């Protein structure tokens, strides 16, 4: 599994992914840089952080990859929910935005959900 990282606090995002599963390949890029990677299959998923989880994190992806493939897994002031993530993954979402306040809480659940799906 390969994940592209964009948005705010990319270093923290990468560290959180590696802590959750050291085998996952990560590539730090930008939202715009991730678009061709996703389209060509170079990466499987995109994680992005911003204040709200839906703004800078995934805005460009919504415009260029499509709204149907993007979702916010943890809003500002919200709580990450693994069941909801599983639902998103089943719906075919590949772009995941989250609030940077909750990176450490959100990433492990999301990685778990993705690993379960890909087994």
């Amino acid at each position, binding site marked *: 599994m390969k994940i592209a990282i964009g948005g705010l606090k990319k270093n923290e995002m990468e560290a959180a992914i590696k802590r959750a599963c050291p085998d996952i390949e990560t590539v730090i890029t930008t939202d715009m840089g991730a678009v061709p990677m996703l389209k060509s299959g170079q990466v499987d998923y995109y994680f992005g952080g*911003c204040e*709200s989880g839906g703004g800078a994190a995934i805005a460009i992806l919504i415009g260029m990859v499509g709204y149907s493939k993007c979702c916010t897994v943890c809003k500002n002031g919200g709580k990450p929910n693994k069941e909801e993530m599983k639902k998103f993954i089943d719906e075919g979402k590949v772009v995941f935005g989250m609030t940077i306040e909750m990176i450490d809480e959100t990433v492990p659940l999301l990685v778990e959900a993705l690993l379960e799906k890909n087994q």
Partner: protein
Amino acid sequence: MLTAVNLIVVVLLCATTALASHLGVACFHDGIRPVMPEYLEGRLSRPQMASIAFGMSVGFIASVGISLTMTTNLLNPWLLFLTTDILGVISPKKWVAPILGGAWGALCLTALTGINTALTFLPVDLIGAMGVLQTYVVTGFSLFPIVAVFMQFGKKQGFISAVVVILARIGGPKLVALLTDKVAFSEDAWTMFIGVILLVGFAIAKDNKTKHERSKEEAEQLTNVFSERVLRIKKNLPLLMIGAALIAIAANIRIFAGSYASVYQLAEAYAGSPNAASLIREAALNEFMRGLGFIPLIATTAITTGVYGVAGYTFVYCIGYIMPNPLLAAVVGAAVMFVEVILLTFIGKFLGKYPSMRDASDNIRSSMGICVELALLIGSMNACITMGGATGFFIGATIYFINEYTGKKIMKMAIGPVAAIGTGLILNLLTVVGLFAPLA
């Protein structure tokens, strides 16, 4: 604060931004912009869109919006425009949006004035403590280039930047004073200026090393695929310019500040500080630097969605601060908006060609947030200590930890000020019931 002119300006401003949101012309929240076309083109219903807008913004309004305003006595975009984003979206008819927007503006201004009057009568001085709260915000903000260099280029460049900037901070003003016997810039201005130069220098050095073959195509793709949407923004220029003019007026008549980068200096200047003029100049400079960091985000989301930001690249805020009168502020503010929109395609192409600029922008925005958060937290704890000594610190820290371990409902940017306000209110309550004696 509550004069007829102020009220009219705020009501008109909020009515305009609510209408802009209703029509999908512009919204303030960068996260609502990309969802807007889904709604305008019928893939999302109005209630769905409204719930998205509300969910994304309510945390900002309640924490950053309210705490910034309560600590500075100035209205801010999070309080006004995030709400008008939502009000515009939920309005079922075109004429409802400006009415709801205007009513919100009137409510904010009257509530602010009322709260401020009430606070002056408290036994423990809350307003003075709010001045303590902002002590290190400007210095904290000026640190952001160093943090951004650490983020983007790693340890070695980070350490080099830190050392160089500290030397420039201490040595720069001394050197200038020695040569010209004038103090041209504050230490904080030096810190930020040298830091930004280092950040840009490292970025250019890195860009020259790595070639971006594919990026040209991407740039073309970005501007070609979305040329219709750019055209849409250009068609909406009249409303955007009216909005910009009103924002500039509100900033100019000293009831509105654009962001955490400027609001505390402005509050100090407007409260009658002896060096008000230089404080306002530096507030405008900080706001301008922050605006630069936001250009890539706002430009690319605008190009891909056809929805612009109500304040554009936020340069209209600076115009408001520095213009000599409201009329001039309005004219120049509208002109700045015009130029921004006309240059949109050009900026889109430029950003496509230099992907490192976007990367830098992400890191700059991350680091600005991190630096101000730290400065505000420490300032807020100092404010707690000013009001209540160790007891004040105890109450403030308790509020901080409660938030930390109950799902962080209040954002990092706001938890410090919220803790300080909470501490002030609790100390006053304790004083009233005779359990606490205000410090001399």
